[in-house]
């Protein structure tokens, strides 16, 4: 194997590609050839490192220096400074992050990286990189020294629970599938990460695909399956391509396929793509989709572990669950169980998004408080605004207000508070967010994504949406709140699958915690957050307006009039409240009243 003294990992995420990551890679290679360093420094492609906003970005190892914002013209300078002279090119360091910080932040930070440990650290397109990080060692260990029952016992001791959101004990699923008599069993990975605001699984698949493949192979050994499927949503083409390449590589060196590592254990893996149906993230709907049918859920029981894919016992776990498995085998059940709370063990990845300073992926031990996540890891609310609510669990989850900031993040506590763990989307909202509008947004989502098989979900979500739309349009009526509460109850208790049963959660939780906002909309015809168009007006402040005409030129309905260099005026009857004028105004002269 060739030895390189230094590795440059260039991010090829869509955002960085757009900013010319490939051109920078080419320029780097050219420059390394020109300076004679091509045999000492290796340039590799990797997935997101965390600074795409200033892309193209790259990590240089072994120093662990994070550079961003380079153009091809800067490459000769960088190569000379960093690789020839051995000095860090300070002007390309990620703003606000010095190398010292990066090294020091690890022990003081509240994050623990188990699932994300390799992300951005290794080349996802090269299986050797994964193997160098102890990859496939867990698989080797169990094949040589553990029986399938032993493997299940280790997972049981670790306390690992499903990371897809519901938190069913993983070992139990494996055991039930194993104990169902059959000649044919399947292992399925649910990579249909459809919750808006969640992208943890995409990241793992794109930057550490082998950890999922290894986890699935271990599961297959434990339950006695020989065929597996990864069901990935069509919105993630890069993840699908990375996974397919990884499967080919694993096959080519005997880590997948027939007689793995020379034993008589065989396991084949195939990627199946979804086609844009959210409900397919529900396990029975997902199986219908793999079978080639409409992705409609089936009643449970029978559970997939008894009667799943093509009627055979099937084990379905989420991407993150599988990615945890190799580490548990390697480091032991006790190590895993030492993290987290009594009932929720290990770590959980979250995708922080919304009005928060540090957006992106995080991985924290279970039991950490929402406050620590939002204000310590996420570095607080954007623009110094007030925290209003945090939404966890995707469209089936709920919104929690500031009274719940000290809630420990584990499966039981979140459910008790009226939300849920979900797959890990966490959307933080500031004071400018209207909670009725947010409830309406989620209802629009579930209503559209309802597969239509059962009536409570199909019709009930539509009725809720109609009421919410009416309230947002300023036509709320006395009795609407009571009607919403009744509908929520009915849908919850009568729907066939998790989508319907969870659909009322955003409405119920906002009704519980932000009832005053509903009342303001209905009785006072006011939107306290100034979001709902029917209840707001845009006005130009005479003092601040310079008469630059930008707003008038951009207004889609020509509602803004005024002479050049004179304060402008918005005609409220013509205005459609699209908000474009606020966006384009350079003087913050437009106010919402």
């Amino acid at each position, binding site marked *: 194997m060739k030895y390189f003294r230094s590795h440059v990992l260039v991010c090829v995420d869509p955002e960085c590609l757009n900013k010319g990551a490939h051109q920078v890679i080419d320029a780097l290679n050219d420059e390394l050839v020109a300076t004679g360093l091509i045999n000492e420094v290796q340039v590799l492609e990797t997935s997101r490192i965390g600074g795409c906003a200033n892309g193209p970005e790259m990590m240089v190892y072994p120093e662990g220096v994070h550079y961003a914002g380079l153009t091809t013209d800067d490459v000769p300078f960088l190569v000379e400074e960093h690789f020839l002279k051995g000095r860090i090119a300070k002007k390309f360091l990620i703003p606000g992050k010095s190398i010292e910080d990066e090294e020091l932040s690890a022990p003081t930070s509240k994050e623990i990286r188990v699932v994300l440990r390799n992300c951005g650290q290794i080349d996802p397109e090269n299986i050797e990189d994964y193997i160098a990080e102890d990859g496939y060692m867990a698989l080797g260990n169990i094949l040589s020294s553990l029986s399938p029952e032993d493997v299940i016992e280790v997972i049981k001791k670790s306390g690992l629970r499903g990371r897809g959101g519901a938190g069913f004990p993983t070992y139990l699923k494996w055991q039930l599938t194993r104990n169902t008599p059959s000649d044919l069993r399947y292992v399925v990975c649910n990579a249909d990460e459809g919750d808006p605001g969640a992208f943890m699984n995409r990241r793992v698949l794109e930057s550490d695909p082998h950890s999922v493949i290894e986890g699935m192979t271990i599961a297959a050994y434990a339950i006695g399956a020989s065929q597996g499927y990864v069901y990935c949503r069509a919105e993630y083409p890069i993840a699908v391509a990375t996974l397919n390449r990884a499967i080919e590589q694993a096959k080519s060196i005997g880590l997948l396929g027939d007689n793995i590592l020379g034993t008589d254990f065989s396991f084949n893996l195939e990627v199946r793509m979804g086609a844009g149906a959210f409900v397919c993230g529900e396990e029975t709907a997902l199986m219908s989709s793999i079978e080639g049918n409409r992705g409609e859920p089936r009643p449970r029981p029978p559970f997939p572990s008894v009667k799943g894919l093509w009627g055979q016992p099937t084990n379905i776990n989420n991407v993150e669950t599988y990615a945890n498995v190799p580490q548990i085998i390697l480091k032991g059940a006790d190590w895993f169980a030492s993290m987290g709370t009594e009932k929720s063990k290990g770590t959980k990845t979250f995708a922080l998004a*919304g009005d928060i300073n540090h957006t992106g992926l995080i991985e924290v031990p279970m039991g950490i408080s929402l406050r620590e996540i939002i204000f310590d890891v996420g570095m607080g609310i954007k623009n110094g605004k007030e925290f209003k609510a945090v939404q966890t669990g995707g469209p089936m989850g709920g919104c929690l207000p500031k009274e719940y900031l000290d809630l420990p993040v584990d499966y039981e506590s979140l459910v008790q508070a009226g939300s849920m763990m979900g797959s890990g989307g966490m959307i933080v909202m500031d004071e400018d967010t209207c909670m009725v509008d947010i409830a309406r947004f989620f209802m629009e989502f579930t209503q559209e994504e309802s597969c239509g098989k059962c009536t409570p979900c199909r019709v009930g979500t539509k009725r809720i949406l109609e009421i919410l739309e009416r309230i947002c349009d300023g036509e709320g009526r006395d009795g609407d709140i009571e009607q919403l509460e009744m509908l929520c109850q009915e849908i919850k208790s009568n729907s066939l699958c998790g989508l319907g049963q969870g659909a009322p959660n955003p409405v119920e939780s906002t009704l519980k915690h932000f009832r005053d906002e509903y009342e303001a909309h209905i009785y006072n015809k006011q939107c306290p957050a100034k979001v709902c168009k029917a209840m707001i007006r845009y006005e130009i402040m005479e003092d601040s307006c310079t008469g630059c005409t930008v707003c008038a030129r951009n207004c889609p309905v020509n509602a803004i009039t005024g002479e050049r260099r004179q304060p402008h005026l918005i005609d409220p009857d013509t205005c459609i409240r699209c908000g474009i004028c606020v966006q384009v105004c350079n003087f913050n002269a437009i106010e919402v009243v």
Partner: protein
Amino acid sequence: MVKTVDKIAVNDPVNNPEQRAIIDQILNENRHKPGATMVVLSELQNKIGYISDAMQIYVAKQLEVPVSTVHGVVTFYSFFTTTPRGKHTIKFCMGTACYVGGVPQLIEKAKQVLGINLGETTADGNITLEACRCVGACSQAPVIVVDDDVMGRFPAKKIPQVFKNLQQE
């Protein structure tokens, strides 16, 4: 779906020798797979760009499944379309972060510039506007996807430039 085979449009992919060859190749590569219907339809959508009624009938016959099954699958999933899209597709991410982050304003601007609604294609067949589900680039909200390029933190004022670039290509 009352169309019969003799009513197929002349320019339908099943009548076009080149596209017909692609369809047959996709069928041959995947017909042995369990659950082949989804795999075949995904590939067709990818390579041909849409799945016409005639294509659905053809696929059903080849895979030996009822036409109703194929049609049911095509209409269930939002990625499958039964009519051709424009040469370029612009998708607006409707994930929560993007919704909060200003995608509604971007859509408004795009509609204004092109004079078409979401789900429609410009008269010259060049650009289709669509809303799509979360593309998982939430930390870059608001996000639009131009063909296969994800563009994050997208300001409304850059919308006309995007259209101009596509028009020129």
